[in-house]
């Protein structure tokens, strides 16, 4: 198939206007025309509530919504009745922390890590305080990766769940899932992966990964805000009580009691984010049509330029792995004597959008002894001009601030 970086970037209206080097895709990605069109077409030709009415608009809306579920299932290589639409990664992980978490007993253990985004940390801390479970954090290695050698020590027979990020939003490090899964299996624990940063970088085979829960957001993978996905094995979804009650998630309601609907609907109380799901479906179809080896090679080539360029700035230091092995195109760095917000602000003057701060990973910042880092996070639409602008701006910022 091949891959034409210029043509691909032209598919993103916000970027095609020019004048912006957007390197904050780890926070939120931009939207391709195909997704904008899918949402618009839905809203202007098929908008209706789903699973409720029999008129033609409602039938079209239901088909679009359930079609999106199938599209997402295909992107992940799982069954579509295991796909629960949520409002985002955070909501998805909270569902697990409540629905699965509240089935745990005091003294049961949940293992997270020191590198987690608050979305995969705070819900477990809340569960600890609510249920008296023990929350353990896997330590990190010197270069900011998960210290998987510690798994044997941290994961005990009381462990019921290991909840880790699939790829770090700060360091870009990708987790070695196989060793996590085998540590979990050895004690009968389940594995949850926070895939928020991983999904924008190519299709997944969850079946092959062997995990039990997977969570991600649409807005980081070229889809609308307000939509996310919780995937879980069907047997788990069936065993878990729902978090939210309301319409669409019931079979029958009487004054005395309620019987839940089948999965996945049991977890989709109320009118779902219909147009947003349709947008997510369009995004995964768009993503699936790309030549991924070529896209990845492009992302990694730019990442290498970034790592090299930052390395040449005096006083700059990459935070996390310094190479391309097992990483997504997310690069954090520290510039001695310069505050991340000052760097980002000066770079904004060069039309470069970066993010500085703790990146919702305060436990990691504590570990690193930093108030924050400056982060460039790339997506498939970035190009050499973006990297040039960033490096040029960084030189200037360093000269100014240090």
């Amino acid at each position, binding site marked *: 198939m091949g891959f034409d970086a210029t043509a691909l970037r032209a598919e993103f209206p916000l970027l095609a206007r020019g004048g912006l080097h957007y390197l904050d895709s780890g926070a939120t990605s931009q939207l391709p025309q195909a997704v904008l069109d899918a949402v618009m077409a839905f809203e202007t030709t098929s908008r209706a509530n789903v699973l409720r009415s029999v008129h033609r608009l409602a039938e079209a809306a239901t088909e679009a919504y359930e079609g999106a579920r199938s599209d997402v299932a295909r992107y992940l290589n799982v069954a579509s009745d295991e796909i629960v639409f949520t409002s985002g990664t955070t909501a998805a992980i909270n569902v697990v922390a409540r629905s699965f978490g509240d089935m745990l007993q005091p003294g049961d253990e949940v293992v997270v890590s020191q590198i987690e985004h608050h979305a995969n940390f705070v819900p477990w801390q809340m569960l600890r305080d609510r249920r008296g479970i023990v929350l353990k954090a896997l330590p990190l290695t010197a270069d900011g990766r998960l210290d998987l050698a510690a798994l044997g020590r941290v994961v005990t027979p009381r462990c019921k769940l290991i909840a880790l990020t699939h790829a770090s939003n700060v360091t870009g490090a990708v987790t070695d899932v196989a060793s996590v899964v085998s540590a979990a299996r050895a004690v009968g624990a389940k594995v949850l992966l926070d895939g928020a940063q991983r999904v924008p970088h190519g299709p997944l085979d969850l079946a092959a990964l062997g995990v039990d829960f997977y969570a991600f957001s649409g807005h980081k993978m070229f889809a609308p805000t307000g939509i996310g996905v919780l995937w879980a094995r069907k047997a788990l979804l069936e065993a878990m009580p729902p978090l939210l009650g309301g319409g669409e998630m019931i079979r029958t309601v009487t004054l005395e009691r309620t019987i839940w609907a089948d999965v996945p609907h049991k977890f989709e109380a109320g009118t779902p984010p219909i147009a947003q799901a349709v947008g997510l479906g369009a995004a995964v179809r768009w993503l699936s049509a790309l030549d991924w080896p070529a896209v990845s090679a492009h992302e990694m080539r730019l990442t290498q330029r970034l790592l090299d360029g930052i390395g040449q700035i005096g006083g700059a230091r990459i935070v996390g792995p310094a190479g391309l092995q097992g990483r997504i195109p997310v690069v954090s760095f520290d510039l001695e004597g310069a505050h*991340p*917000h000052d760097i980002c602000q000066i770079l904004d003057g060069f039309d470069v959008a970066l993010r500085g701060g703790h990146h919702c990973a305060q436990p990691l910042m504590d570990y690193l002894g930093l108030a924050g880092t400056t982060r460039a996070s790339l997506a498939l639409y970035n190009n050499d001009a973006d990297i040039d602008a960033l490096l040029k701006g960084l030189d200037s910022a360093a000269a100014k601030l240090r």
Partner: protein
Amino acid sequence: MSDDLYQRAILQRAKGPAKRLDSPSASVTVDNPLCGDRVTLDIKLENGAIAAVGHLVRGCALCQASAAVIAATLPGHAPAAADAGREALDSVLMGGIAQAPWQELAIFAPVQRHRSRQDCVRLPFDALAQALAQAKT
């Protein structure tokens, strides 16, 4: 568009030496939760007036410069000058001017157009208000 924030005046203040006080009348540390910035402010009162201000900032240049302007301006004035400083800053951030003795706050005029950064300049004034309240009790 944003580069204007980092003019000579602000950067000079930000890079100037930070100095804590040895035996302050009050000392306060405040955090900005959003960006993790942290300001420590010491004040020494003598005969009802502010004799000295010490400061230490782990934060951005705007925050550092703001603390430095306080430390440079306030000594010799009555505590009420702190409130006047807060008002002068608000005025500058809304496009107005800063009354004496706070004229130097004019260096923050460009922050007017950067709402997300205004708290950075304000944080040292929050710390100052808390330190004065502490000194009074």
